[in-house]
């Protein structure tokens, strides 16, 4: 990267614009999370607060799935830690931008780090764009709809109960599938992606209802890619 990395309002607007259509894909997810939170006995204020501060749907759904009264403080915290370990694997890939920022910008940007915004930021970095404001903009464009739809889901509560397996839930999967398309770099990705899929399927079968399959698949696939590159270079 030859350009100096910047952090501007224009970059934030660019991120905001790009992420808005993606945020449509998480609307059903937000509503489902709100409905589940209401079913678990959380108040509207608690549901909204959780979505605003945790801002990680899969971990929220998993924690709410085994909620109790009084609330399972340790269990919910551990669930968030395990499900969101994948976010720890994402941060380092943003180094080309984050390493050149100072202070609050880094740590505030990281608060809004989610899968979709991260995938778009990686595409930006690979295209040689250097405005790190993009990440905060896309994060905000995903955060606000997330909080609003969680609250709406809580309000709809018992009215809106799409049964498990309803095609509306496919929107969450479709969001990730569409983000995969620009990440495909060619033949070199074939083996690592195949390994990631196989390991994820296996681990999902061994540990159903957990999110270890994502971490295991990603690690196995990435290491396969790195080792294949090293063999090719040697």
């Amino acid at each position, binding site marked *: 990267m030859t350009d100096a990395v910047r952090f501007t309002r224009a970059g934030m607007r660019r991120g905001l614009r790009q992420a808005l259509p993606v945020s449509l894909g998480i609307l059903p997810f937000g509503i489902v999370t709100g409905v589940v939170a209401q079913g678990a006995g959380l108040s509207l204020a608690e549901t909204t607060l959780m979505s605003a501060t945790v801002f990680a749907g899969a971990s929220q759904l998993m924690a709410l799935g085994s909620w109790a009264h009084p609330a399972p403080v340790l269990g919910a915290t551990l669930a968030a*830690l395990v499900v*969101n370990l994948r976010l720890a694997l994402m*941060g380092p890939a943003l180094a080309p931008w984050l390493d050149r920022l100072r202070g609050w910008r880094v740590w505030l940007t990281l608060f809004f780090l989610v899968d979709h915004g991260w995938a778009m930021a990686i595409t930006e970095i690979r295209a040689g764009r250097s405005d790190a404001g993009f990440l905060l903009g896309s994060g905000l464009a995903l955060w606000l709809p997330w909080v609003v739809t969680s609250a709406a889901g809580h309000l709809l509560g018992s009215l809106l109960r799409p049964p498990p397996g309803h095609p509306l839930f496919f929107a969450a999967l479709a969001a990730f*599938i*569409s983000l995969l398309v620009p*990440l495909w770099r060619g033949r070199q990705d074939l083996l690592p992606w195949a390994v990631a899929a196989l390991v994820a*399927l296996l681990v999902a079968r061994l540990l159903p209802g957990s999110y270890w399959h994502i971490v295991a698949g*990603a690690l196995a696939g990435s290491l396969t*890619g790195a*080792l294949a590159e090293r063999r090719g270079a040697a």
Partner: protein
Amino acid sequence: MSLDPATLAAILGMTLATYLCRAGGYWLFRQIRPGRTMRAALAYLPGTLFVGYVAPGLWSGGPQAWAGGAMTVAAMVATGNVGVAIFAGTGAAWLVWLLR
């Protein structure tokens, strides 16, 4: 509208754990400079992470998920627009679900 102390504590715990993941991974790699193999592995991570996420869902989702997945990819390749791809894919999944 009520805030229960135990629920608040649980939400706080989840928030801290999640932020620890978000910021901790980057922080750690700033302390330990990754070598060449590690950098190569990180470059593969975006793709493999999402593959790991979607593979079990596609596998167990049956015909509606397969049709939806194929339509999502086709629409994304054709338009390059994530919003269009999500709508087309979800629409295809819905259609197959209705036709069952």
